[in-house]
């Protein structure tokens, strides 16, 4: 009696499953390969984090799990000067990109919004986000030319304006690298970022501007007291998203614009992982560096999202 009851229960469960599969087999034909694809390319590599806790030597006789060393790689990491320097550089350039990138993008959006001539407005906007579509390889080729010590336009301009007496070697001196990196970022991306702020500005009600005009506000005052405050929620949420991605800012530009004489200020965690890990075969040590970056990144994103939910009522996920 009991057995037959269990059997029917089992049966109904399996038949329900079979029924669903039969009904949705077409969706499953697309859905299951995609699920497998996602698991393979995004989740299977997470198992590679094990390497951070071992002393992996690439040879046919050892597996990833051999030579377990616990947290030793992390201890070495935090007493390693080069890693600490790349951590500092990652945070510094990331922060510079976020703060100055936001400032310039907002400024650009405000400026473009104030232009009343449609032709000029369109041209300015179209031109300003053009560099976004160039690869960093192309962009750095252009930037290295502009900043070069012999005949670079930046030096020529500064010489012409008599700000400097001698051309400055912008790309060969480490004290200038952060400036080079952030300027490049602003040149390449602020036009693109400004699109988001511009679309937020178009959502501001015209009534406010009219009311302000009646009260005798000039255009500066309208920007200062209406446009900017109305943009604040968007600025805040974009800022929070960017902070969540702090450690992922850059990399390509640091790799392409940097060279051996500025390495102390150009090395970021990702370039460090490539050079020490893949370049020199220190897989475990570099995985530990990458794992540290990922974990801090996840913590930053979750915290940023929580703050965002509290501050603006809107979360990213």
């Amino acid at each position, binding site marked *: 009696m009991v057995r037959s009851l269990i059997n029917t229960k089992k049966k109904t469960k399996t038949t329900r499953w079979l029924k669903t599969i039969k009904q*949705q087999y*077409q*969706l*499953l034909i*697309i*859905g*299951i390969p*995609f699920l497998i694809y*996602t698991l*393979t*390319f*995004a989740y299977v*590599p*997470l198992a*590679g*984090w094990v*390497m951070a806790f071992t002393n992996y030597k690439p040879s046919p006789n050892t597996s990833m799990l051999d030579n377990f060393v616990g947290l030793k790689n992390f201890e070495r990491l935090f007493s390693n000067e080069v890693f600490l320097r790349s951590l500092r550089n990652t945070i510094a350039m990331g922060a510079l990109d976020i703060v100055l990138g936001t400032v310039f993008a907002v400024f650009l959006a405000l*400026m473009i919004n*104030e232009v009343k001539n449609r032709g000029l407005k369109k*041209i*300015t906007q*179209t*031109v*300003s986000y*053009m*560099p976004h*579509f*160039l*690869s*960093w*390889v*192309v962009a750095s*080729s*252009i*930037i*290295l*030319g*502009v900043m*070069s010590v*012999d005949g670079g*336009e930046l030096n*020529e301009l500064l010489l012409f304006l008599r700000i400097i007496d001698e051309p400055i070697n912008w790309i*060969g001196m480490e004290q200038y690298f952060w400036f080079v990196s952030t300027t490049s970022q602003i*040149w390449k991306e602020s036009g693109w970022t400004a*699109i*988001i702020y511009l679309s937020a500005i178009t959502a501001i009600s015209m009534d406010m501007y009219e009311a302000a005009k009646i009260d005798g506000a000039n*255009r500066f005052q309208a920007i200062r007291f209406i446009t900017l405050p109305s943009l604040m929620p968007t600025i805040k949420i974009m800022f929070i998203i960017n902070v969540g991605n702090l450690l992922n800012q850059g990399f390509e530009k640091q790799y*392409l614009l940097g*060279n*051996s004489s500025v390495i102390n200020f150009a090395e970021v965690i*990702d370039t460090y*992982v*490539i050079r020490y890990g*893949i370049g020199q075969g220190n*897989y475990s040590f570099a*995985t530990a560096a*990458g794992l540290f970056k*990922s974990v801090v990144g*996840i913590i930053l*994103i979750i915290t940023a999202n929580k703050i965002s939910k509290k501050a603006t009522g809107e979360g990213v996920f």
Partner: protein
Amino acid sequence: MKMLQEWHNKSLQDKIFSMILLVLCIFVIMITLYPMLNVVAISFNDSMDTMRGGINMLPRKFSTYAYASIFDKNYFLSAVTMSVLRTLVGVGTSVPVMVMVAYVISRKEYVLRGITTRLMVYTMYVSAGIIPIFFLMRTLHLTNSFWVYIIPPLAQAYFIIITRTYILSLPDSIMESAKLDGANHFTIIFKIIFPLVKPVIATLVLFVAVQQWNNWYDTFLYNSSNQELSTLQYELKKMLAAATIKGDANSMGNSESGNFLTPVSIRAAMTVVVSVPIMAIYPFLQKYFVGGLVVGGVKE
């Protein structure tokens, strides 16, 4: 005339404001365009003459020798082929796949909807990092292979979300009535969804094409030992690295059949060639990406 009239009617403060705006706009346009035009001018200028400096927006001594020399290089044609091939195959495979996936996870009845969506969204935030991914590619035999350009970026969460959002905004009744007429999901996807999501498809095509064309990083990481799989971007990257290592790029002029060429000229010509396709599709791009970006920006 009308413009003059309007100008006349403005208050002094307004006039000053407009003038400042005009100056700022010209400044932004110059700062963005000038470096690009400068590279074009250098690429078309005589190589030895360029060393004297002072090339602005137009070449001083016109020459196409730098272009002739890169077109002559044996790696060049294969790099062009590889760049074009990866762009075409990449777009041709990933766009249909992403639209189909987006449709599937937009179906409310789909049993694996919740878990698939969640696992997909997390991929935007969690990444195993360079080395574990490198090992995965090696294990899957994707290194030293063309398919490393196509398979890993095949279905990207961000684009799928944009597409799904668009599909969800379509009236459900279209799909319902198709189902009543006996259409299955595949018919719905190919006969109804594809035509309806054309604006999204255009956005995806352009974004994926730009992404494929611009990528140098996967070549560098997985295929750098195989010259046949090298792309234009990677060849330009190698030139850049060579120039920065040597420091002073101008000092290494080389002579080829009486003509002199400097790395500066070759690099400039290469930079222009690599960016031409992007600049060519840029006008078409514009129409679509603003909408796409705003959807993405909000949902990100």
